[in-house]
């Protein structure tokens, strides 16, 4: 006689509380996909879980988010500011602000864009403070558009461009960095800077034109 098959009784077991509501097969997830690709190639659902835990005060979850995204954030800050120590300060300030304000974040899926916005604001603050402290003096020799040795012979193109970039304001720098360094789509930049898509396109072209003007001011010959 065979023993009747018993169905496992799970009443004894208390599963860890899921951070997100389970989705039934075939059901469309209630949350929207994030506008920005999840940091550090982290699956979006995993990131949302980490953000939820961090929003409830779990510092280890936030530390994991930091570990995964700090590299990218620091690169953005450094590209905008052009200085490692300033970039480090701005990145730290941005993450601490994010940690403090995280419980107020309404949509956990937009964490990336939200963090990016905080980071850009931190860079803006840093630039503002730097302007109060010192002014960048230009070498008068570079401002003279006289015939002489080619610019390419004296400084490299990227150095010249970098100096021209330093003449731009924070908004222009940020939009150029997000577009050219991070290759983020316009929609993602719009989410990160909290502006409409059309405005992003306009500002992008404006920033590029401003960079061209700054180049001219730095002494580069007109194309």
């Amino acid at each position, binding site marked *: 006689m065979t023993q009747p098959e018993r169905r496992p009784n799970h009443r004894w077991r208390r599963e860890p509380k899921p951070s997100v509501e389970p989705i039934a097969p075939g059901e469309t997830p209630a949350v929207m996909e994030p506008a920005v690709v999840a940091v550090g190639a982290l699956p979006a659902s995993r990131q949302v879980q980490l953000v939820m835990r961090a929003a409830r005060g779990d510092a280890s979850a936030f530390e994991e988010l930091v570990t995964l995204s700090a590299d990218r954030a620091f690169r953005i800050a450094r590209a905008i500011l052009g200085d490692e120590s300033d970039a480090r300060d701005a990145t730290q300030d941005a993450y601490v602000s994010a940690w403090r304000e995280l*419980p107020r974040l309404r949509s956990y899926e937009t964490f990336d864009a939200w963090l990016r916005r905080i980071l850009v604001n931190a860079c803006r603050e840093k630039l503002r403070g730097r302007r109060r402290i010192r002014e960048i003096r230009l070498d008068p020799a570079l401002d003279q558009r006289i015939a002489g040795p080619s610019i390419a012979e004296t400084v490299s193109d990227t150095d010249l461009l970098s100096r021209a970039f330093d003449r731009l304001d924070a908004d222009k720098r940020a939009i150029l960095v997000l577009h050219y360094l991070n290759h983020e789509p316009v929609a993602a930049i719009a989410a990160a800077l909290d502006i409409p898509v059309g405005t992003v396109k306009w500002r992008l072209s404006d920033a590029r034109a401003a960079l*061209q003007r700054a*180049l001219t001011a730095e002494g580069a010959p007109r194309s």
Partner: protein
Amino acid sequence: MTGPMPFELTDALIERMLVQRAGTGLPFDLVSGIAARIDVTPQRTRGVSASRARVLLLAATIALVALGFAAALIGGLLNQKPAPTDPSSGASLVGLWLGDPIAVVGVGTSHQPVLNVFDSDLVLGGTGLTGAVVHSFTAFEEPDTLLLSATDDAIGCAPGAAATYRYTTSAGGLILTISAVQDACPVRAAALAGTWYRAAATCESGTALCLRELEAGTFKSVNLDLRTTHAEIGTYDPTFGALTYTVPDGWAVSRDSRTQLWLNPIAEHVKNPEARERSLSVFARVAAYSQADGCPTKPSTPRSTPRRTPSPRGLPGARVSTPGRSMRSRSMAIPAAGSTSGSRPAGRARVPGQMERHTRHCSSSKTARRARMASGSARRSATSSSISTAASSSSASRRPLPLRSRTSLPRRCRSSRASNSAEALEVTPPLGLEPRAAAAARMRPRRRVRQRRRGRSRGRPEVRRRSRESAARPGTRPRRGR
């Protein structure tokens, strides 16, 4: 005569310039700096808007009225039937209880059985079992008597099989002892009788079951796994009772995971469960140093656990058993000599006999690196005379389970220095530190290692000098053998 070449601004040029500005690599202390700052930064609470508050107030009022009607209705219905027993007498038992591993023929083996007591029935099950070992209706006849009536369980007790049990709970209600007075189903009696420990309501993330705030007494680890090797981590099964420890009143389990068990004074635990400054910790699966080819080794450092044992034996007041392959668990007693407060004197002192050896580790994971800092060892934060640590073998497991085979782990060589070898008691930063400073102090050794490496490789004497100064500073870990 030709003028300067025109400068053409291209996308590729802008990208190249930005990549150059962004640089490569992350400052090594950025993440740790952020972690230290968030440790001391409170989060803001989510505010409720006025309109939302109005809606919530209205909903709460409606719910209260509905509940009142429902309670009146249900109360009227219940009054028509006689109540079988007074459930309040057994209310103290309601909840989850953890017990020693069990093996039931035909049902399976559970390393972490759980007794779930409800108002009117109880269920005994666990991971590894194909069903409920015990499922019976309950009634409480007297304050210490439990009446059972089997319903549907996996051990084949006849439906309605009656039993009488006597139970006692400890003063703090955390330890439940059940003994059978009479049971028509002997398998149920064997499974149910014994000592059970109340599981905490909430555990750290990733852990389903744990103990938290403790009362004075002897308790057991819930998830710590002392016997599984690195190679067997994938087959990890939480084992209750791998470590038995005795604490005075006022202690809490801050972490009980596969690899670590932290005991903290309750005040510290409530303040910050992640605090390590005053914690007493046990680590599992620790490699004292690399055994991989190419990694330099110190011949004086023993490789095996039995040969490492003499080192903590030298500590005053420590009792260390001779571990053997047949030993399943160890016990550690924290007797309260003269004081049960668990408090410790301020200041930092070194435990006599503490060993610090330069080792090289072979792994890449943070967890493994932490775990390697002390193998099967206790970490404590001060040398209070009121608390002493002892280790002795224990055969507390009711049903010892077969040991898993031990295999060596191939690891990549990683250059680093560990400040403590296996079996060492370690002193952590002083009690008076601010949380932020304490966090910084926690990270200091790793940073110092990097500074030292950098200083050596680049030949920067000032870095080495700074490192020596920081080592001599109070609040940093003393160093030997430099």
